[in-house]
């Protein structure tokens, strides 16, 4: 269906931005959670969204995917996607790794992965199992009985099953043991050769290694937008930046 046609098609946005967000606002009840977020991601680059807890990083990703009520312009490949339903957006070639893992507890590992298969595309189980051999051994286990880190692996595996045009990844290394973190980072590095990534990450080492471009959010606004090497020069600079961002809001 839509997925096959659009997917792999060199759209008009190639060379420009693959995802562009302009003036994104989101409300939950009375609180104004995103207050005019704008940014753009480039093909085959990693854009990292940084910021303290509760500034709206997750909300930004969820808005892009249509999982949250919002206003503003969201274009993927030059096409307005705000009015599409979530599954239609995903079929354009996106993948999402949510912050809470959100694996399906009642389903087995194999079933979780089968569910993530896309119609018309060949799933790359080898890549997934090579990265997380644990999952191969536990194919028949119900996901709800797995440890936190194992669930995180499964959540990542679902997104890595296919090649995507854009991956939205929310704190992918949370709860993973250090060795796995570095293996995962290596895999993601390979993938970014042909896939764009929008990454939310609290592990600075990971962000520094992967990101080409950095956006800093504060209280629902973009307060900084720049090349990664400038922003993430060292730990203290980023701490300062995040701190500044917070002050900026309060001042």
């Amino acid at each position, binding site marked *: 269906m839509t997925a096959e046609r659009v997917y792999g098609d060199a759209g008009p946005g190639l060379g420009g931005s693959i995802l562009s967000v302009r003036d994104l606002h989101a409300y939950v009840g009375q609180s104004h959670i995103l207050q005019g977020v704008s940014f753009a991601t480039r093909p085959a680059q990693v854009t990292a969204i940084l910021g303290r807890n509760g500034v709206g990083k997750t909300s930004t990703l969820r808005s892009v995917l249509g*999982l949250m009520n919002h206003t503003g312009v969201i274009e993927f490949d030059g096409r307005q996607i705000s009015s599409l339903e979530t599954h239609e957006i995903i079929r354009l070639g996106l993948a999402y790794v949510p912050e809470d893992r959100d694996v399906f507890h009642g389903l087995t590992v194999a079933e979780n992965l089968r*569910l993530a298969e*896309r119609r018309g595309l060949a799933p790359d189980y080898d890549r997934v199992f090579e990265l997380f051999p644990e999952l191969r051994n536990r194919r028949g286990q*119900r996901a709800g009985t797995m440890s936190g880190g194992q669930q995180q692996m499964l959540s990542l595996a679902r997104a890595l099953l296919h090649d995507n045009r854009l991956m939205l990844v929310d704190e992918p290394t949370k709860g993973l043991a250090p060795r796995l973190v570095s293996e995962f980072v290596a895999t993601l590095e390979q993938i970014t050769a042909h896939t764009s990534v929008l990454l939310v990450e609290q592990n600075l080492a990971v962000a520094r290694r992967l990101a080409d471009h950095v956006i800093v959010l504060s209280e629902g606004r973009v307060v900084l937008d720049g090349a990664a090497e400038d922003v993430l020069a060292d730990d203290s600079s980023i701490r300062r930046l995040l701190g500044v961002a917070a002050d900026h809001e309060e001042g």
Partner: protein
Amino acid sequence: MSTFLLIIISGLGLGSLYFLLAAGLSVIFGLMRVLSFAHGAFLSASGFASWMVLRSFETPSTPQLLLALVVSVLTGGAVAYLAEVLLVRPLKGKELEQLLVTVGLGMVLVALMAGIWGPDEHLIPRPVWLTDTTSIAGAPISNSRLLLIGLAGVVVVGIHLILSRTRYGLIIRAGVENSAMVSALGINVKRAFTLVFVAGGMLAGLGGGLAGTYYGGISPFLGDGMLIFSFIVLIIGGLGSINGALIASVVLGVSQSVANYYVLNGIGDVLVVVLLVATLLVRPQGLLGQKERLI
């Protein structure tokens, strides 16, 4: 001996009827986590649909009976479709509200049927072969019972095939846990929910068509009378487990029938409640139900 057989097979027939209703409920609950109190009304409505087809005939032929069954299945599906789209879907994720909205729907449908067709039973004409009896080891078994038992078997196999051969089972089970995440995997989860609800409704429709021909009559309250037994079947079998529902239906139908004959007429109903309470205390998740891990 022949009486014993008569009692057993009549229990099986009763069990089959429970199962047809419970199967629809079980599919819907097992996959969507919606306990539908409107299911009895779906059954009655479908029964009326088959009555509308058959009432004009003195003694309908077999094709006419089939037509009536098809119509009742479609009616069950259509009613369920509307219910899902208009009532259940807007309450996505709110299990309790969904349950309550089906309570309301059940009330409304039964009242509507009573208003249109009156509270009394309407007789459904049946083909001659259906009202005849077949002698099995000397026991006169009504053919409608045999038909019912046969069809219940077909339904079990059908449900298994559908759930194991298609992705729908998977999608729905996942969708119940977290439908947002299912759509975030690129799956149209809304459509899958509707399909399942409609399938459950069609099973109720089949039950309605068959119950009508089995009892020979239909009234607005027929389905509700059976609903409570189907619930009990569901709980004893383990919520959401089709096989559990099958076993529980048979156990309940047969033991009800046997108790009524060999112990005391009418004790069957009491026995059913006792069985339910015992199951809940000894094995709360039911015969084939699964336990969840808490932490």
